[in-house]
């Protein structure tokens, strides 16, 4: 190799990107060639000073722009016919596909020659071809859709309010059921008072939308139910 050839590879050599064999040849040449050694030293110095530079933060808008461009390309891809999309995806593998198609053709010929029809799904015919097309289309669709299972924070916060409401509702339902199983010994007057009070408190809860005020109403209802459940005898004048 000439000096010009070695000097073209200097950058790759200094970055450690040459193969062992190429690097060995480069080292050998640098031992004997003053001009290339000087060029290598200059290049090394330049690289070193570049490394000393502070890291450059990309502007925040850069990623937005890249993402927007990717989205446009995906939209254009989605609008193109399926066979074009398939071809674009298959193009890098065309040389390998050629071999495969040739081998399949040989096999088909042999099968035809043997008189046996190709088994469904085993030949390279249309029964096989739709599978990758479908998977390619579905994967494109999956990429275009928002990440599945990720609930946006706004929705998550709204759900938390609903969940809190449901927690109170569940606890109250449990308490009402427990009261129903424990109230056998209650006096009719006390039972009537209980029914009336629960109706009022429940109506208040039902009249409010989920939020702080409704939570207070739930809490009042819960405490009344718990009091009735655990202290009814006291209210009924136990000794």
């Amino acid at each position: 190799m000439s000096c010009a050839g070695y000097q073209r590879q200097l950058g790759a050599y200094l970055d450690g990107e040459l193969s062992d064999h190429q690097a060995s040849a480069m080292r050998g040449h640098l031992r004997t060639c003053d001009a290339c050694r000087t060029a290598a030293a200059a290049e090394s110095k330049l690289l070193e000073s570049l490394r000393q530079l502070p890291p450059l933060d990309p502007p925040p808008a850069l990623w937005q722009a890249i993402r927007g461009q990717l989205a446009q390309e995906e939209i254009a891809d989605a609008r193109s016919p399926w066979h074009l999309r398939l071809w674009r995806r298959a193009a890098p593998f065309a040389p390998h596909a050629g071999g495969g198609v040739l081998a399949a053709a040989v096999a088909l010929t042999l099968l035809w020659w043997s008189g046996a029809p190709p088994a469904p799904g085993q030949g390279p015919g249309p029964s096989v071809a739709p599978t990758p097309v479908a998977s390619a289309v579905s994967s494109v669709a999956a990429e275009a859709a928002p990440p599945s299972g990720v609930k946006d924070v706004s929705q998550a916060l709204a759900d938390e309010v609903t969940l809190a409401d449901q927690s109170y509702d569940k606890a109250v339902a449990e308490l009402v059921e427990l009261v129903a199983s424990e109230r056998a010994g209650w006096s009719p007057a006390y039972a009537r008072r209980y029914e009336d009070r629960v109706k009022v408190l429940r109506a208040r809860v039902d009249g409010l939308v989920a939020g702080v005020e409704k939570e207070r109403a739930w809490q009042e209802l819960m405490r009344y139910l718990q009091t009735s459940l655990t202290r009814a005898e006291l209210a009924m004048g136990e000794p």
Partner: protein
Amino acid sequence: MTRTPHVMAFLASLATGLASAPLAAVAQAGKAPVETPIPKVVERSRLDVAPSQTPFLNLSVDNPLGDVRIEGHDGSSVMIETHKSAPDDSTMDRLRVSLVPGLDGSLRLGTAVDPGVDSRSVAKSAMRIDLVIRAPRDLRFTARVGSGQLEVSGMDAGGEADATSGPISLRNISGAVNARSISGPVTLTEIFGSIDAELVDAALRLDTVAGDSLVASAHRGAISGRRVRARRIELMTTSGDVELEGELALRGKLLISSLHGNITVRVRGRGQLSVRARGKQVDLGTTKTKLVKGVTLAELGSGDDRSSVDLRSRHGAIAFAVNW
């Protein structure tokens, strides 16, 4: 012509394999690229809010997006430290902290998330806002969190603490305190004032509590207290146990009730104690008891100042002990 079946089968499978290789490669090419983790963006800011003419009287904090810590100090200004974190800049731009001072001496602090300009979903767990607030001690607080942690310490005018599932910890507070939680545990330590606590599915722990009244209820959680002293103590659970160690004020009233929980009480006795207990098993620590219509009665101690103790658990055991 002789054609062996296995040769034909081999050729057929070879053809299928060769034909499917590029097709598999196509399918492989259609897979979504593996996303590299995006570094977190963190933003910290600090704001000092000084009162203009009227001093601050009330502080209200509502943070569904993270933790809240309120610490009392001797100054007159409110210092707010905001710690925001998000997966990227655009999400960070959605995080909002609002501060609204009122003419009545109130200061309202809230956090929220803007809807965002793009349709990209960002999980709640990927972002948070934590608030650390140093406020004048004599300011009454109202603080609310979702799943974050709520800590308040060193305040002298009481306050209210609410959480959905995050833990609440109040320490060294004077004044009336209200604490409410659905599923986050509540710990009240060194509270000098009345307490009202209501929990659904969480445990309440009390340590060094003194005040006029202590009213607490838990549906599925337990209540435990040590060094508790109050004139009126009312504790109630549906299924959780209640364990209390403390001191009854003279002419005080202690009422603990539960449906399924066991009740264990150890008090330091003063004056006369009138004890009533109703439970599946009752142990009042004395043989001088009477049983009237299922209620075990005992008169303990002596003196003009009579305190009443009422313990009842329909399906649980009751143990009561007095240390004179």
